[in-house]
């Protein structure tokens, strides 16, 4: 698989480390009343779709940026690559 890095251009996926579903960006609020349940969900359950999947990849053998890659889990086709920082900020996070 080739990941088209938004800053560095096309890079082989073997340069990256895979973390998992991009929902991991949205860490629950630890002060919420149901924080325990939210963290159990956050830590352990996944949608795991057959089809388009937004996921976190870390460019360990490169510029050490976190990316959000949109990839089809049935065909391995990658359709979108964004900097995780941009995705998190667009969702209202400070960094």
């Amino acid at each position, binding site marked *: *698989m080739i990941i088209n890095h938004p800053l560095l251009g096309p890079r*082989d*996926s*073997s340069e990256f480390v*895979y*973390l*998992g*579903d991009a929902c991991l960006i949205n860490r629950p609020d630890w002060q919420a009343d149901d924080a325990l349940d939210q963290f*159990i*969900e956050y*830590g*352990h*359950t*996944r*949608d*795991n*779709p*057959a089809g388009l*999947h937004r*996921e976190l990849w870390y460019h360990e053998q490169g510029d050490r940026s976190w990316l959000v890659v949109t*990839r089809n*889990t*049935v*065909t*391995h086709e990658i359709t979108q690559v964004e900097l995780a920082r941009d995705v998190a900020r667009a969702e209202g996070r400070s960094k």
Partner: protein
Amino acid sequence: MRYSGFRVIKEALTGHRGWGPAWRDPDPKPDYDYVIIGGGGHGLATAYYLAKEYKQARIAVLEKSWIGGGNVGRNTTIVRSNYLLDGNEPFYEFSLKLWEGLEQDLNYNAMMSQRGIINLMHSDAQRDAYIRRGNAMILNGADAQLLDQKQVLEKYPFLNVKNARFPVMGGLLQARAGTARHDAVAWGYARAADQRGVDIIQNCEVTGFRIEGGKILGVETSRGYIGAKKVGACVAGSSSKVMAYAGMRLPIESHVLQAFVSEGLKPVLPGVITFGAGHFYCSQSDKGGLVFGGNIDGYNSYAQRGNLPMVEDVMEEAIAMFPMLGRARLLRSWGGIMDMSMDGTPIIDKTHIDGLYFNGGWCYGGFKATPASGFVYAHLLATDTPHHTATAFRLDRFHTGHMVDEKGMGNQPNLH
């Protein structure tokens, strides 16, 4: 029809006209007492033990394509019970005991061969870990033996034991472990279940559940609605997809695991051997091909095929262990979809929906578990209580904190 040596001779002398199909091809009935979703090894074994041990009738196994076409036909055929943790080892040892009597029980040649497995050790720390694991195995009624370098070399004289980075210091041997013909396991269970009245319905994909008031009524399928008192999902690889029809999100990611076979070679490997400094396991089939595999590719996938970086990684491990294989050619590679659970351990449990049960999350370990998985799942379906060897495989263990993390990797499925 019973299979026997006499029967083979008789058929050979009469032109093989007496063999019939090994199982029927029935149309689905309007309703059943038990519907098992998934005609793989585990689903067929579940149906078989439900019929045999728990005397249940009116059972159907629904398979979306043909039986045995998923992971039971894609694994590296290894059968063993060399686990450490109390939640796991009694279950896998129960499974190995069932393997030992499987062929007589099913009247089917599953080519069960107890040729032994050796996990190689490459450091002092690993020796300590293997001694601990071996002791845990023995305490749970399994067999284990610690080998030093000389004893390993007696069995595998060509091993590169003097590798500067990963010298082979010895190994942990489980002599009762071995290999079994994976397809024959599915076929054997299918035939034996069919003989006990189980309807095996192929080309019948489940497309939804009918649930009312928190109770299961039946399943919607590509061949129409089928009513059921109890429904057991047994679809590792597609668990998230199927259980989503019941509105469930699971602690599971689907990952692709590749396996490989070399061209046929003269007998070189007497048993199963694993590389302790990486993740590599290898045995030789009766046809002569070396059957081996390594890690999962490491990203969510439903593709049933992997990518080249992992192929390269596995080959490097093979050559590090057996430099003499440098000229052997790879014949085939293929991929299967693993249910990678959050702690590396399977789930066999009821769900919050009355009459709906779940069996999945098998990670790499599904094939060796086939008989016990079927047995304990049948026990759960029939009695609504977990079998005593499978009490740790609960769905709610991530909420209660009772994870069974054999490898100690935490909730990172691609590291288990």
